[in-house]
């Protein structure tokens, strides 16, 4: 397969397809993932090609989806569960946190739970309540899980497959408002490791770390900042648990300033952990405290307010200015 331009949604689809071709134990399951191909069409065509036994339209019950996926994994399968929207993952929280995350540990390593949970997440699509949330911190705080998120088609394609190949449970957060963003995908390229961060744009004045949907926003901010003579280094975290702290620290040691951006509420969001860790490791390098740009401490508001609620280019630049002002 040759390099080409594609979207994140299509790249996930191709990643799933590839994984299913490579390993007959890979299953796809969730609400409406079969005949419909998922509400975002991410699983489009898979049931047609792999059959109803491997692409399963489940009953409308998220705990049931994860719980049965665990059972399937115990029988040797590698289920990839789709949770239809971020806000509908909570009914499955117990199965994820108490079973999926802990069963391998409980068994003293005798059991593996190679289950992938795909979650379209984040706001900006003008949706009704529960369809725009960013719950990743709830999972990153949970030992036993791995948590990753992609920001472009190439990562979407490779990370999907890497997550499926992992013998640990992996939560894959997919930036739903970027599903139709285009980018290059070279299926023959050598992918980064699943848990590596990536310097998405080199710069010298301030490091701005982001992930998922905010990477594009931050890259746009970097372009705008350049016009004003400020050079931002953009780090796409890619993995939220574990964090690739080394890449981040290396960047901060150069720029001496860090801004972390995510859609999730700031309070106990990923930015908190990053701020705490980077400050500990770079205490004598930092010229300013690590600043955070995130959602406010509110339930996700009505969609006509989401542009004000979500971090945007201006809020990123505002934080950059504040960091530089220290």
């Amino acid at each position, binding site marked *: 397969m040759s390099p080409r331009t594609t979207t994140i949604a299509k790249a996930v689809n191709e990643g799933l397809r590839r994984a299913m071709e490579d390993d007959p134990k890979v299953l796809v399951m969730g*609400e*409406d993932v*079969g*005949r*419909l*191909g998922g*509400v975002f069409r991410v699983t489009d065509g898979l049931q047609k090609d792999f059959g109803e036994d491997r692409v399963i*339209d*489940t*009953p*409308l*019950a998220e*705990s*049931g989806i994860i719980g049965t996926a665990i059972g399937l994994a115990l029988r040797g399968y590698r289920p990839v569960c789709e949770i239809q929207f971020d*806000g*509908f993952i*909570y*009914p499955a929280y117990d199965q994820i946190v108490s079973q999926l995350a802990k069963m391998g540990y409980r068994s003293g390593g005798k059991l593996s739970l190679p289950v992938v949970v795909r979650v379209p997440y984040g706001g900006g699509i*003008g*949706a*009704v*309540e*529960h369809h725009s949330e960013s719950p990743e911190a709830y999972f990153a705080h949970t030992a036993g899980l791995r948590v990753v998120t992609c920001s472009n088609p190439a990562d979407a394609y490779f990370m999907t497959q890497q997550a499926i190949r992992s013998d640990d449970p992996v939560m894959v957060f997919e930036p739903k408002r970027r599903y139709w963003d285009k980018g290059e995908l070279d299926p023959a390229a050598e992918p980064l490791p699943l848990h590596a961060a990536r310097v998405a744009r080199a710069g010298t004045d301030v490091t701005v770390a982001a992930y998922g949907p905010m990477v594009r926003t931050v890259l*746009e*901010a970097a*372009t*705008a900042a350049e*016009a004003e003579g400020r050079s931002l280094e953009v780090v796409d975290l890619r993995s939220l648990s574990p964090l690739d702290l080394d890449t981040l620290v290396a960047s901060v040691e150069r720029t001496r300033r860090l801004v972390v951006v995510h859609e999730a509420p700031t*309070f106990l969001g990923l930015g908190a952990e990053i701020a705490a860790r980077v400050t500990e490791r770079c205490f004598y390098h930092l010229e300013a405290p690590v600043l955070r740009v995130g959602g*406010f*401490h*509110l*339930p996700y*508001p*009505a*969609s*006509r*307010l*989401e*542009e*004000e*609620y979500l971090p*945007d*280019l*201006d*809020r990123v*630049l*505002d934080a950059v200015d504040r960091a530089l002002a220290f």
Partner: protein
Amino acid sequence: MTVPVVGGPGGRPPQPPLVQLLTPEGERVEHPDYSIDVTPDELRAFYRDLVLVRRVDAEATALQRQGELGLWASLLGQEAAQVGSARALAPQDYVFPTYREHGVAWCRDVDPVTLLGLYRGVNLGGWDPAEHNFHLYTIVIGSQTLHATGYAMGVQRDGAVGTGDPARDTAVIAYFGDGATSQGDVNEAFVFASVNNAPVVFFCQNNQWAISEPNERQTRVPLYQRAAGFGFPGLRVDGNDVLAVHAVTRAALDRARRGEGPTFVEAFTYRMGAHTTSDDPTRYRIEAEVEEWKLKDPIARVKALLARTGQAGEEFFAAVEAEADRLAEHVRSECLAMPDPEPVSMFDHAYRDPHPLVAEERAWFAEYHAGFEQSGVDESGLAAAAQAQR
């Protein structure tokens, strides 16, 4: 009369009997357990409700297509299930709807315009539940069945069941779909309601589909049978028959008010439209099924009865149409006039008592926002500039 009804095509097994009082052809039939007297006034009122809620629904769908709403969940085909059940409610009864109960809202005197706020994205549910005894729309599938059960437990603690006082005895009704029956919460609601003998009616609109998934993905037996295993009665009613739905729901509500506990009503109906305006049902269901259900239209059969029995004539029908036009116009103009919320208002009501973090963020935001207004720069100005550069 208890008639066997066969489900849609697609190889579904024959369906069990269901309560019916008005056939698709508009014939009144009797049922031993649910006989009902309907005066001409009442029948005309049902007709009017059905027509008006369908028109509101159509207008909202149009508004969505024109970009005025972000989304709409159409009730097309389910008018009788909603109107028939909601018209059985007493004022003091309390309703817990899903996101599709526009017909129930109508019967609870919620101005349809108010329903649009949520779908337009200007609020998350604009009406005052206490004013209408009609709770906010619940989007997380099944959650509201537990709220309804808890509310009903509160009714019991208030001594508002089984007193025999029709103005006091109170029932609660929880609406949910066929897909919802798979959720743990709904089954836990059955447990809590049964064990507490709570005055709650579980009203399931089985519209055959949960987005793209047919009933067969949720159950292999008729849904109303679920109730017996939890220790309370369940029954299936023709959900497109406003009279049967009304009679059955009234009986269930009365039972609840008398203190005899929960009932499960399965209104067997059909989702004639897409799941929501975001959905494309041609990807997963065949047109023939929809065509078959068109023949069972809930409004046509009432009109046929009214006309055939001379309880209403062209004048009445025309008047209702005219009223529907006016209502649609009201919905449209009020929708277009609906203002966007003030940005800073998003900080309201996350908490009722003071909260320092929210206060701090609100203050920051107000200042930040004022900065843009003072500088005369549209807040998205930089973003637009940046995008233009790319």
